[in-house]
């Protein structure tokens, strides 16, 4: 029982990180039809920038802000200067963003070196909580809470505001949205910035327990894509459910059958796709 609870919570805290990554990816992928291979790099950059800032200021909050905003700025430049020229040209996008991911990886190696780092756990969230059956790190519980809050915030923004309705209109039918006088381009750039910032924030939140090291970008990216594909393109609900599924499965797989961990993750994904090719909550 204790084992299962610990694994479940571990899985959920990883799911919260995945949600931060995948919610941005699914919005960018679903709304803007941009396949962004550099999305994992946003996670990496967010974590490294936060590392530098936390070393300078000793404030985790400042580090989280700096990591998210820096990555948002990087995302805006990528979208406006490069990706906006390749609307619906998937091959060009994949090559371009893959190139960016190499550049970012090398840049990070050059600036922060090849040693693994770990962001310090914020002091207020150090230690463990007694859950009766087991002790669980406070910080990881907080990560789950942050994931839930971000999901709630995004859902309210999307479903309960005019801006959210404009975004959904642009997802449904971009041309028609333009035909009604909606200037879609700044909406798209804003979406991209939010998606990038969430990935960067994910890197910051993951920093204290997963660490940051060269290659973490390409480790998280396939998982984020698995979440998006299982959940369905462009669906926040899908990203949430997909994150929980992938987070928990990946954790259990690694704990129970470490040598088969990719198998336990991608077989369920293949099954979902066989039954629902558009993902759990995707639209055709």
């Amino acid at each position, binding site marked *: 029982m204790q084992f299962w609870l610990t694994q479940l919570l571990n899985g959920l805290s990883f799911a919260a990180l995945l949600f931060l990554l995948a919610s941005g990816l699914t919005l960018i992928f679903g709304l803007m039809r941009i396949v962004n291979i550099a999305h994992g790099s946003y996670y990496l950059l967010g974590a490294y920038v936060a590392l530098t800032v936390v070393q300078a200021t000793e404030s985790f909050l400042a580090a989280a802000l700096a990591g998210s905003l820096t990555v948002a700025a990087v995302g805006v430049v990528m979208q406006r200067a490069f990706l906006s020229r390749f609307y619906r040209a998937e091959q060009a996008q994949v090559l371009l963003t893959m190139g960016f991911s190499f550049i970012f990886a090398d840049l990070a190696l050059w600036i922060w070196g090849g040693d693994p780092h770990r962001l310090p756990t914020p002091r207020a969230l150090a230690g463990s909580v007694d859950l009766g059956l087991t002790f669980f790190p406070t910080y990881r519980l907080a990560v789950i809470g942050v994931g839930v809050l971000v999901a709630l915030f995004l859902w309210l923004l999307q479903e309960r505001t005019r801006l959210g309705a404009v975004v959904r*209109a642009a997802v449904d039918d971009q041309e028609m949205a333009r035909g009604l006088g*909606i200037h*879609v381009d700044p909406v798209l750039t804003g979406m991209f910035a939010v998606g990038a910032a969430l990935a960067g924030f994910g890197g910051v939140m993951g920093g204290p327990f997963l660490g940051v090291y060269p290659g973490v970008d390409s480790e998280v990216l396939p998982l984020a894509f698995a979440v998006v594909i299982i959940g369905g393109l462009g669906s926040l609900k899908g990203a949430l459910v997909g994150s929980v599924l992938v987070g928990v499965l990946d954790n259990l797989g690694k704990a129970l059958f470490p040598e088969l961990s990719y198998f336990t993750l991608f077989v369920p994904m293949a099954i979902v796709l066989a039954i629902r090719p558009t993902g759990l909550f995707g639209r055709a």
Partner: protein
Amino acid sequence: MTEALRVEDVHTYYGDSYVLQGVSLRVAPGQLVAVLGRNGVGKTTLIRSVVGFTPPRSGRIRLRGTDITHLPSHVIARMGVGLVPQGRRIFPSLTVEENLVVAARPDSGDAWTLGRVYELFPRLRERAHHRGNKLSGGEQQMLAIARALMTNPTLLLMDEPSEGLAPKLVLDLAETLVRLKERGLSILMVEQNLPLALRLADYVYVMSKGTVVFEGTPDELRRAEGVRQRYLGV
């Protein structure tokens, strides 16, 4: 007097296919002009050219005298062109009310508000919180018109508004259009429904193979039996 819309010798391509081969037409302020013709003669492309979805390769389009030929669609829409597209194109994941709110342009005058649109279509108020994909064809058509009105247009472009509607609903549609005209709205309507067009229009164009082959008043078209048989199949 400047026309609400003037299309001058417009040539439009869809990729390699040469669809509009020199089309000219005019809509006077407050007029309802109908464009008739069989499927595939370029009627929808004409509408798409005016709103900037498929800009013409040559020719000029003027809105109240201003050249809008190569402006982006959202700018054209904000200059007062309201679009009721073929197939309605209601945003399926938005509620009825959201479909209206995203189109609202309060800065361009207060002629049309949510309240006034609901007065025109009380049915939409009842359905305000239903998603766009849960509406019947008739409700979708009302919503498409209401949504275009929310942009406070001076010119309404309608692409086959009667398509797929039951006869009773076509009558309702006709009544709505009469009321909109009474409010001074200029309307360019593309239609296959000849009786509807003849009943409502002030002026009629008939298109074939990307060009205008007839223009005149509805009475003139009623008398031009050759045109009707040859180009409209009636």
